[in-house]
């Protein structure tokens, strides 16, 4: 009797271990089971080829419509107006980079009129703003105008340890190396009207940079300007108070570190009034450079770039040509696979079950 009772309980226990009879637990879920066959793969290649080639053509045409003019003014183009027969780069080197300034004028001609919105950039080559230690050398809290000492990340540009002992405002290597050339355009004898607001990211200007309270006292007495700057942050744009101090848009643009060693940053935008209503007319122009920024010691180069834009950004033919190339490769693959599919007969690869049965039949009926 006790034996039977035990086996019944065991039997029930064993019964309850069985998983429930649902589709999930018994692995009967409905599933799509795709297999790549010729009927699905060949149309895929064809469709990709047929869509990528027109997209590529559109992109190439859009990029060709963007007009661009570069002027490299690092050394030979930019001859000093004060010292005879020296380039501005040479003039700075002769003064041992002690903050000398140099002006030069470069004459050039635009052979096509740049219609629409025109943007002016400064470009730097061989300038590694993406160096890791450089990128970390900033204090975002200080840039929001908060109280407190400058962060130790800004070392060695944290405070003026040799002089007054005050913190630098703004601190860090990124801020210290701010681009400080002044570039302006003359159309004949007329100044080309440009604007220096609206060039930084709107999110940056809204959230990341804020002047502290009592800004003029902050920038002039309680804090020092960074060692490589000629003026304090409160003198960056004295005409517009929203564009002064940390909120100066040139400063904000510079603080957005570039990803590549060859980069350009937005400098000014054309203000379309009077002569420049439709853009830059074609003709002779003069670029007036106040050359402050030395780059020759690390084989860097500086450029001034005038460019229109499209919905895709600046001039970028590479994307269009890549699309065309991928489209052509797809079409070639389609043709090759189509020919192979029709001509390459494999020895009945699919009659796995049926071949063996057919073989069987032959044996038993003879």
């Amino acid at each position: 009797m006790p034996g039977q009772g035990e086996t019944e309980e065991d039997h029930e226990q064993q019964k309850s271990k069985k998983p429930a009879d649902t589709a999930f637990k018994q692995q009967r879920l409905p599933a799509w089971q795709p297999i790549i066959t010729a009927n699905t793969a060949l149309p895929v290649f064809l469709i990709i080829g047929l869509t990528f080639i027109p997209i590529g053509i559109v992109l190439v045409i859009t990029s060709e419509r963007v007009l661009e003019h570069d002027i490299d003014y690092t050394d030979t183009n930019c001859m000093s107006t004060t010292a005879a027969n020296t380039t501005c780069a040479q003039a700075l080197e002769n003064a041992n980079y002690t903050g000398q300034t140099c002006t030069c004028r470069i004459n050039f001609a635009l052979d096509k009129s740049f219609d629409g919105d025109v943007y002016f950039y400064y470009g730097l080559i061989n300038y590694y703003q993406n160096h890791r230690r450089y990128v970390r050398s900033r204090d975002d809290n200080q840039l929001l105008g908060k109280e407190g000492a400058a962060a130790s990340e800004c070392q060695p540009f944290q405070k003026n340890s040799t002089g007054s002992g005050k913190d630098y405002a703004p601190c860090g290597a990124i801020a210290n190396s701010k681009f400080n050339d002044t570039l302006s355009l003359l159309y004949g004898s007329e100044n080309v009207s440009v604007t220096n607001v609206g060039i930084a990211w709107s999110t940056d200007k809204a959230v990341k940079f804020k002047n502290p309270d009592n800004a003029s006292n902050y920038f002039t007495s309680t804090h020092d300007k960074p060692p490589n700057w000629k003026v304090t942050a409160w003198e960056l744009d004295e005409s517009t108070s929203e564009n002064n101090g940390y909120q100066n848009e040139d400063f904000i643009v510079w603080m957005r570190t570039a990803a590549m060693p060859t980069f350009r940053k937005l400098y000014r935008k054309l203000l379309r009034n009077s002569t420049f209503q439709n853009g830059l007319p074609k003709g002779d122009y003069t670029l007036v450079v106040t050359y402050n920024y030395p780059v020759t010691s690390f084989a860097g180069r500086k450029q001034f770039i005038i460019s229109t834009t499209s919905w895709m950004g600046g001039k970028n033919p590479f994307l269009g040509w890549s699309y065309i190339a991928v489209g052509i490769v797809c079409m070639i693959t389609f043709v090759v696979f189509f020919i192979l599919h029709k001509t390459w007969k494999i020895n009945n690869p699919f009659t796995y079950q049926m071949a063996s049965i057919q073989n069987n039949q032959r044996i038993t009926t003879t």
Partner: protein
Amino acid sequence: MTQIDLQSFGFIIGTIITVVVNLENALEIWYWTKFYHGTLWMTIIIYFLFYMVAYSTTFSKIFRVNFDYVGVAQSVLFTGHFWLVLLLICAILLLPVYCREFYRIRFQPNETDKARINQKYRHEEKAEFITEFRQKVQLKKQLARSSYAFAQEEGWGPLITSGRMQVRPNPYSRTSHDLGMLHASPSHSDNLRNLAETL
């Protein structure tokens, strides 16, 4: 001369990696249950939603944090340029895998591939083959029965014992739902021979 900044560049690379890796995984999967569909598409969607929220200015204002990536998602995801680049790189990275798989399945299928294709696609051919085969098997069954019946009468013994009317054992057959075939049991012919010898 690029205008892109370091954080946007990193974000673009990260996004492309996430999308491409998920799609490559999708190419490897054989059974697309609803759980897999959900996982795959939700991974990609949640990636985009997460970064749009995390890098937004409202998030930065609410939590009063200031970091490098604020505004990056907005500046990258709302330009057409980024989506074109994403599409191109997905095509460049996924098409070779797709070509390789197609070539393998169509021209060099291994046993698993053949079985999968068999199971999914060859229904009509198999149905025709089965009906034809079944008729032949039924004919054979009639013959076997009649030779056994003859064994009860006088004079059929030598014919039976000669082995010409034997139903040979079928080493390749298997019971399957498709074919509905019955075993021809080897023991049946042995019984016949024993019976004939005892006569």
